[in-house]
């Protein structure tokens, strides 16, 4: 029998990040996966980041996680999305070479001495009186631990559809984890069914690139990790083509043979990532849709046509793909397919991603109803940190909506649950102007250092940068200038007599760090990166100050924890309906309770007064 502090089941993006986080915390960690060589595989599109998603990767990196570093090592076309809009809504993204990414993840994991990677299938959980004790492998061996993180992805009751053909399975080529699925089903957690689709993969050597537009990366690539400043791999461009009337006709004529339209799939798919069938039906007035042709690797001819995921039969896929400009002679190396899978309602989790009904059991990733590598990895980070904290008897590490996209996602999941595969958007973050990709380190690294999951190298580099930023800001805030002085330095400002500091005017339209340096020569002594970051911080100051009261309020509500085992039946005056809802939801704090549907201000007050009263806190 082997003993660990934390066991991570699954080696996808959630599992890899969870294992890394747990290991960074010094916990003896085991990562158990069906295939050691499949750790870090990008099963869907070969890209990391994007809007909202790029924010998550930066936040993972700020906690010294591995996804950002791996993306930098594997990135072959870096673009900062929304580059011409404000910094709050800019998101870094890269095409990633599949092989380089997988290798990067595997080599990063190999750095951790306290991490053991084991190949095997988890058959069942060891449970002692509602407390997790470890896992049993299919070969009968027992591995014990105080915490177990399940990152089972789409393996749970996965069914793959290609047209009207189905088979049980997870990703193509993987065996489904039927045994584990049964064990989890026995926990009586609420479940739902979701679907997701993939496009056919193309042989890039059969694409007529010469007739296609190309999309290069940014001239000055933006990295994910705060520790990196330039790409590692050679950089390439993507191709752009589009569907046409003939493509749409072929799809329309074969809708009845599509798994999704032929009635074979009951799961709910994402609205924002529609299949080509969805696009043709729902946007019937559009005569074309854009397709990005994304190379999967530098030495891999496979191309991922982003924008035409499908569950049509293989021969129909060939017909419609070949109707597209540049793809007339293309060879499909693997047909697109749809996959249906079970997820567990994440409202059954606490904000540490621990299953409320089973102490020590954590869920992270697609099993919680999310989609995307970044969402999975961010959950892996939270689960990994908290599993390690639990194993060492320390209080959980919670992430607030007011401090991070991670906090936004965890709160969305555990409070509202999901109705479609959950994907991060910047619009989900109400404090978006404060939660930027550019300041993820300023928001989270200090907290991560305190938790103990940050290397000395990163901590030192972070502190140096933080000191420089504070100094730059102080220098700019020191002196207030008259409108005349500002105008002389090239700053457009009304002659209203008000004196403003250089930091104040950095928020004005058209004011650059150069203007600030004109006003305050000492500012020119800081390097360009510090100057730019100071300008980004200054840009939204007035909005962020206005939101401060909301943030304080939110944090106060979050801080008012509802103890585990709190007895709602003991509150006279609370309606039966709400008592039942509260018993089902088991909110972790007053903020979560306030989000429960049907919750009234009156009921909330009642709840607060009882939570605050020590005498009634707990019933035996």
């Amino acid at each position, binding site marked *: 029998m082997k003993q660990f502090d934390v066991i991570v089941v699954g080696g996808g993006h959630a599992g890899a990040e969870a294992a890394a986080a747990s290991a960074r915390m010094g916990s003896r960690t085991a990562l158990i996966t069906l295939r050691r060589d499949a750790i870090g595989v990008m099963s869907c599109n070969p890209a990391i980041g*994007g809007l909202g998603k790029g924010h998550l990767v930066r936040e993972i990196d700020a906690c010294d996680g591995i996804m950002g570093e791996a993306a930098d090592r594997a990135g072959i076309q870096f673009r900062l999305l929304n580059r011409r809009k404000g910094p709050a809504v800019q998101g870094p993204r890269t095409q990633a070479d599949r092989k380089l990414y997988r290798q990067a993840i595997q080599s990063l994991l190999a750095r951790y001495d306290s991490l053991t990677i084991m190949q095997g299938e988890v058959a069942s959980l060891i449970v002692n009186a509602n407390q997790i004790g470890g896992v049993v492998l299919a070969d009968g061996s027992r591995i014990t631990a105080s915490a177990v993180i399940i990152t089972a992805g789409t393996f749970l009751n996965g069914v793959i559809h290609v047209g009207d053909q189905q088979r049980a399975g997870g990703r193509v080529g993987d065996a489904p984890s039927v045994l584990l699925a049964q064990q989890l089903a026995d926990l009586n957690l609420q479940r739902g069914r979701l679907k997701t689709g993939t496009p056919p993969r193309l042989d890039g050597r059969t694409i007529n690139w010469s007739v296609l537009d190309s999309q290069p990366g940014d001239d000055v690539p933006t990295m994910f990790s705060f520790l990196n400043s330039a790409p590692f791999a050679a950089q390439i461009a993507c191709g752009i083509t589009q569907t046409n009337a003939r493509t749409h006709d072929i799809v329309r004529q074969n809708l009845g043979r599509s798994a999704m339209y032929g009635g074979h799939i009951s799961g709910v798919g994402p609205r924002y990532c529609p299949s080509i069938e969805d696009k043709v039906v729902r946007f019937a007035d559009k005569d074309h849709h854009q397709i990005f042709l994304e190379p999967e690797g530098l030495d891999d001819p496979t191309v991922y046509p982003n924008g035409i995921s499908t569950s049509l039969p293989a021969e129909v896929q060939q017909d419609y793909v070949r109707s597209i400009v540049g793809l007339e002679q293309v060879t499909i190396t693997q047909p697109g397919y749809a996959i249906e899978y079970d997820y567990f309602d994440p409202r059954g989790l606490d904000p540490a991603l621990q299953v409320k009904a089973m102490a020590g059991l954590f869920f992270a990733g697609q099993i919680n109803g999310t989609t995307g590598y970044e969402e999975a990895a961010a959950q892996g980070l939270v689960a990994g940190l908290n599993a390690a904290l639990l194993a060492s008897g320390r209080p959980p590490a919670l992430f607030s909506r007011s401090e991070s996209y991670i906090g936004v996602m965890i709160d969305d999941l555990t409070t509202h649950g999901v109705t479609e595969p959950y994907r991060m958007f910047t*619009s989900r973050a109400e404090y978006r102007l404060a939660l930027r990709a550019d300041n993820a380190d300023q928001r989270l690294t200090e907290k991560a250092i305190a938790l103990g999951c940050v290397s000395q190298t990163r901590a030192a580099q972070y502190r140096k940068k933080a000191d420089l930023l504070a100094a730059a800001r102080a220098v700019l805030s020191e002196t207030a200038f008259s409108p005349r002085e500002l105008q002389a330095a090239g700053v457009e400002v009304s002659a209203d007599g008000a004196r403003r500091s250089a930091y104040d005017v950095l928020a004005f339209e058209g004011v650059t760090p150069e203007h600030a340096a004109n006003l305050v020569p000492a500012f020119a002594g800081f390097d360009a990166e510090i100057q730019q970051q100071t300008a980004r911080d200054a840009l939204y100051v007035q909005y962020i100050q206005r939101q401060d009261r909301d943030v304080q309020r939110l944090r106060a509500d979050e801080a008012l924890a509802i103890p585990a085992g709190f007895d709602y039946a003991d509150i006279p005056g609370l309606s039966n309906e709400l008592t039942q809802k509260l018993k089902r939801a088991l909110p972790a704090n007053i903020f979560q309770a306030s989000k429960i549907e049907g919750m009234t201000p009156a009921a909330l007050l009642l709840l607060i007064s009882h939570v605050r009263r020590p005498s009634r806190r707990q019933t035996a």
Partner: protein
Amino acid sequence: MDTIFALASARGRAGVAVLRISGPLAHWAAGQLCALPPVRHAGLRVLRYQGEVLDQAVVLAFAAPHSFTGEDSVELHLHGSIAVVAKVSDVLAQMGGLRLAEAGEFTRRAMDNGHLDLTQVEGLADLIDAESESQRKQALQVLSGVIAQKVAPWRADLLRAAALIEATIDFADEDVPFDVSPEVLGLLTRVQQDLAAEHARSGAAAAIREGFEVAILGAPNVGKSTLLNALAQREAAITSDIAGTTRDVIEVRMHIGGLLVTVLDTAGLRDSDDVVESIGIARAKQRAEAADLRIFLLQRADERFDIQPRPDDIVRLAKGDVVQGSIPSVSGKTGAGLDALLAEIAHKLEGKTSAAGVFSRQRHIQALGVAQAALQKAIAALPRATEAPEVIATEIRVALNALEGILGHIGVEDLLGEIFSSFCIGK
């Protein structure tokens, strides 16, 4: 838990003033002043502190949990003198460990200790708030959800506008090439105009809730104070034959035609060399200008002052018992013409209430203002929708939050503050 104290009865001169002490030190504190009678037994005691006699009082002690707050508490039934209450309060504050209660703190403790449930707390607040028939109606209307009905379409419009802007942010890479600005501008402008209209109508709504002000104006010794006393049906103001008896503004709250009205008696209007009287006259004019309605008491029909009656104002010949003329008269002394005057006041104020909106609380009106200001900023930023959509989105969100806040989707601590601030200290 602190031990708190405050006057539980109304402030000012009265037969009896009840000072309430609640908390772990309540019995100890009262014990410093006198020998505490057995709990739930009233005892007449002389209160002494450091050798000095403070007052003679009926002392009533309660032991936790059998008290209003659920804590140990003591009521001191003092003589209703401002000086006595002030002295005893000072002594309690000096003892150490005791402090003056905040507004609503006794009620809050009662709720925290399970002695009142929230519906009772709210009922108490409503009982304190509603004074007039029109307030009752207004509260009922609000209760029926009319505010939510008003806010719903604004919310829908703003959500649509926000969604359009958000789409240009979050789907930058995908197919949102069209310019959303024209539709957003239309939506924001429409809501902004509706908000401005409601804001304008909220003044009358607030007047119903908080009471109308009616000022009585006229020359010295024309019978303004006599009229006030007749309206109030008590001797609220000193009257005499001496011109200039009333110097400061005297306020009396009463109900007229189901409306809560504060009638203001003011110093007689004349040129005066007396410094104090001049201040009184200036104050009279200032308050009269701000009042919702003015009653001009004239000595003759063509009498004029430097403050002019507005079209809606009421003009009466004074001393209707001895003077008759071409315009209606009233006499505070005999009551002649008083009913007609009351009817006219009621009629005029009702006319003002018919235009009242449904947003009557300062909280509502502030929220409308916040939303309006945010939408103005959003509209101003719209030409930069391509470069700074996040700023527009933020302003729309501020407006949405403000409007939703009216409906109660607000932070818990604010809610507590809102509810308990409607209680006065000592309750």
